[in-house]
């Protein structure tokens, strides 16, 4: 429990010698810009909030110098970012362009790249349209024989179509 008769507990008690000395030191410190200390900084902040003063010319110069230096650093960094972005975009465009052109989305066929052995075999397996001449060893009879010829052609190409379908399904 506090004792109202003790000066430290009584807000209306007159200041002690010690308190007067501290007050005087703080006042002197506020007048001296080079003075440092937690209490001095606090007192300066309170005074600036209550009645701000112009910055000292040196302090102003320091702030400007620091701001300009920071701006230069940011500009250099931004220029680097722009350059790197363009370079990366070009590389990505190069890769995407080549991939888009050579890649056949559905069939996945690759142009400009040697096919794998399996793929090469499947290409070789595809029967393409060609003359049916090799199906006939002799010249045609002067009259008739057309049905026999179309029978032979249809059967040969039906076999080709089956091979092509199997090759497409990848079961050959």
């Amino acid at each position, binding site marked *: 429990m506090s004792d109202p008769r003790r000066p430290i507990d009584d807000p209306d008690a007159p200041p002690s010698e010690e308190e007067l000395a501290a007050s005087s030191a703080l006042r002197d410190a506020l007048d001296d810009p080079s003075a440092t200390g937690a209490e001095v900084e606090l007192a300066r902040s309170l005074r600036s909030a209550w009645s701000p003063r112009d910055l000292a010319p040196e302090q102003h110069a320091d702030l400007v110098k620091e701001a300009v230096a920071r701006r230069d650093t940011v500009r250099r960094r931004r220029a680097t970012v722009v350059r790197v972005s*363009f370079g990366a975009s070009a590389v990505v465009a190069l890769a995407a362009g080549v991939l888009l052109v050579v890649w056949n989305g559905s069939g996945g066929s690759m142009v400009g790249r040697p096919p794998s052995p399996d793929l090469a075999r499947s290409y070789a397996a595809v029967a393409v349209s060609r*003359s049916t001449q090799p199906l006939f060893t002799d010249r045609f009879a002067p009259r008739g024989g057309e049905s026999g010829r179309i029978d032979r*052609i*249809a059967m040969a190409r039906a076999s080709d179509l089956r091979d092509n379908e199997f090759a497409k399904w990848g079961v050959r």
Partner: protein
Amino acid sequence: MKHGWLLLAIALGLGGGAAACRSEPAGAGCPGVESSSPPIDPPVMAFLSAARALHHEADIREAEGDLPGAIAALERLVATSAPRAVEVDEVLADARARLAELRLERGDVEGAQREVEQGLQHAQGPTYFRGHLLEVEGRVEERRAAALGDAGHGAEAAKVRAHAVSLLEEAVRVQEQVIEHALADGGARD
């Protein structure tokens, strides 16, 4: 920055070159493109199946003595919409040759001549199909020469007969070319 533009230019160049390769129909100078011939696919097979059925239908009509019916079946064949393929051309050439013979049998010399001419459009290379069409054309001219002779146009008949002989000779030459090609291929058969 300079490097960025350079790389972009290279990318565009490569893309354009590859695109040109893909759009090249014959694949000339483009790696990985082996042949411009289309593969044997269902549309080609469907046409060949229809042609086969119509030839057999024409056989039945012919056997019954129904030449108009046989001609009608083959007219359907040549009117069938067909995909582009070598086989299709050769089958159409053969069907035209048969139509020409049937028309000739009915005495329609001009109709037979038209069929041969259209058939030759489908058989331009040295094949038995072209040789056969030339042979049929020679017979058409032979029939025309006979008709002209019967009508008393001796001079014109002689001219047409000479033309018939030249067509038959040409037919033989084509057949010989086919044989030479076959021998050059080592007798390879499909």
